[in-house]
């Protein structure tokens, strides 16, 4: 019994202290992975904030953006041109979604809009496969997936650039939501469509803006994940990893998505390395979901979510 307690509560920390450089490497790996999760979660938060819709298709949007980019590069377009074209495609997609899916469903219950995004999910998946094919594709953005030693600590270049991209995006979006007029309008639209219309917010424009921004975030996510693990249909499943991040951070909070991602990223890496051997490994696969369950029980609105009490 005592030895078990020792193995769980003492030995791992002793290991960390014994090899600090390795500990820092694990921590950095965790932070980098966490920011990648945050990036996925951000796409959800944006759309949830602005339309109260949980966008089931966010994962597929990531896949679709990555497929489009790789497909265009494969057809011989220079990377920059292909990237701009992908941006154009995602913005066009936002216009299309507003016109075909959202506009006819104004003022419907959130569950209806959620169902519509499930439909969108299948549509985009099919469209992506039809246009770009179903093979695994390699995405080379010019940053090698290799490590360098900085101050005695191994750092992966690709992970670092992904982390930097995520950090910049997050900062820009946080400012956008908190400070700008459009940010306030977005929050208003998320809360009540009718009221937003009555104070002069054009729903259409707001929706196009927010879906376009979510599309851009999807491109960034797709590029970073695609460069790491190849562009393939399983890319759309990273959306599953975003769910626990959202539950931790709160569905309506941009900073929450970041902090949630960081907690999950570092938690699962540290857990895997230091506690993994105790249970035979694979902590990385379930850590996020168990943590999310704990949060659902004790703090369902997440760390930063808005707590809305409905009066009956």
């Amino acid at each position, binding site marked *: 019994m005592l030895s078990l307690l020792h193995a769980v509560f003492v030995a791992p920390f002793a290991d960390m202290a014994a090899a600090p450089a390795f500990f820092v490497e694990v921590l950095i790996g965790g932070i980098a992975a966490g920011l990648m999760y945050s990036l996925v979660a951000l796409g959800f938060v944006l759309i949830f904030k602005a339309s109260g819709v949980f966008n089931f298709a966010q994962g597929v949007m990531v896949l679709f953006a990555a497929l489009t980019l790789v497909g265009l590069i494969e057809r011989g377009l220079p990377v920059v041109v292909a990237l701009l074209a992908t941006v154009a495609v995602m913005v066009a997609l936002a216009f299309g979604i507003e016109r075909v899916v959202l506009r006819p469903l104004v003022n419907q219950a959130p569950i209806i809009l959620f169902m519509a995004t499930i439909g969108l999910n299948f549509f985009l998946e099919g469209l992506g496969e039809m246009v770009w094919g179903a093979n695994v594709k390699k995405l080379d953005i010019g940053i090698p997936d290799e490590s360098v030693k900085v101050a005695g600590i191994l750092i992966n270049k690709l992970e670092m650039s992904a982390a930097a991209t995520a950090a910049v995006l997050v900062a820009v979006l946080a*400012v956008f939501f908190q*400070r700008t007029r459009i940010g306030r*309008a977005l929050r*208003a639209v998320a809360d009540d469509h009718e*009221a*937003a*219309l009555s*104070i002069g*917010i054009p729903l259409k424009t707001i929706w196009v803006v927010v879906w376009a921004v979510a599309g851009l975030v999807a491109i960034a996510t797709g590029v970073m994940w695609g460069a790491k693990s190849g562009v393939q249909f399983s890319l759309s499943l990273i959306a599953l990893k975003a769910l626990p991040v959202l539950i931790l951070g709160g569905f309506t909070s941009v900073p929450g998505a970041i902090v949630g991602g960081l907690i999950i990223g570092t938690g699962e890496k540290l857990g895997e390395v230091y506690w993994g051997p105790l249970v035979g490994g694979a902590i990385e696969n379930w850590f996020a979901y168990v943590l999310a369950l704990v949060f659902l029980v004790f703090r369902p609105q997440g760390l930063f979510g808005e707590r*809305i009490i409905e009066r009956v």
Partner: protein
Amino acid sequence: MRVPEARAPLLEVDGISVRFGAVQALQGVSLTIGRGEIAAIIGPNGAGKTSLLNVISGFYRPTEGHIRFDGKDRTHLKPYDVAELGIARTFQNVALFKGMSVLDNIMTGRLLKMKGSFLTEALYWGPARRQELAHRAFVERIIDFLEIQAIRKTPAGRLPYGLQKRVELARALAAEPTLLLLDEPMAGMNLEEKEDMCRFVLGVNDEFGTTIALIEHDMSVVMDISDHVVALDYGRKIADGTPAEVRTDPAVIDAYLGVAHA
């Protein structure tokens, strides 16, 4: 019936009909609201009062008829265009942004008044900062006026019903409307809250010169505060005049007491 005394017309509704499938919500309703007056729209449940308000604020498209506001035809406008014209409204069942603070809710009412580039706003810099502060100052005046200083940081969804209605009025006022449409501003309130609300409605009319059209069920309130009363029943206008005239109008009495229509 008499046309309300010589006020310049602000809103002219001419022969408006609204139909939902087989249901005729409004049928050839015409009325004029003069600049600076407080007009009340009354009628039994289902008379078409809210439909009329929804047509004026652009939420419903009339199947027939015309609306002129400030001398210009504006029959088929979208709600946000209507807001831009200077018409603000509240809702029967309170439509606040529940997750946002009272202050933020009221600030959204000023969105149309805000200008500025994206970048300066994002950096909260120079003109953007001055602008935000100026709007804050205006909003604080409204908060003082409606006596809701104590709740300015509270999320709107947590407030009791009476206060939510007051915050909704504050948000509408923040847009500095020329015409304010209030859909049952006193429904579900106790006597004290009703008296407060009456005071505010009269105060808004007096202090800001805002023209007000309100739907109300409480006849004593209607008689006390309005200059002009329009009565609807089964989607048609049955009376239009001063409170005293409408109160004694046999058609109105019939509608409320349920006398069979011949």
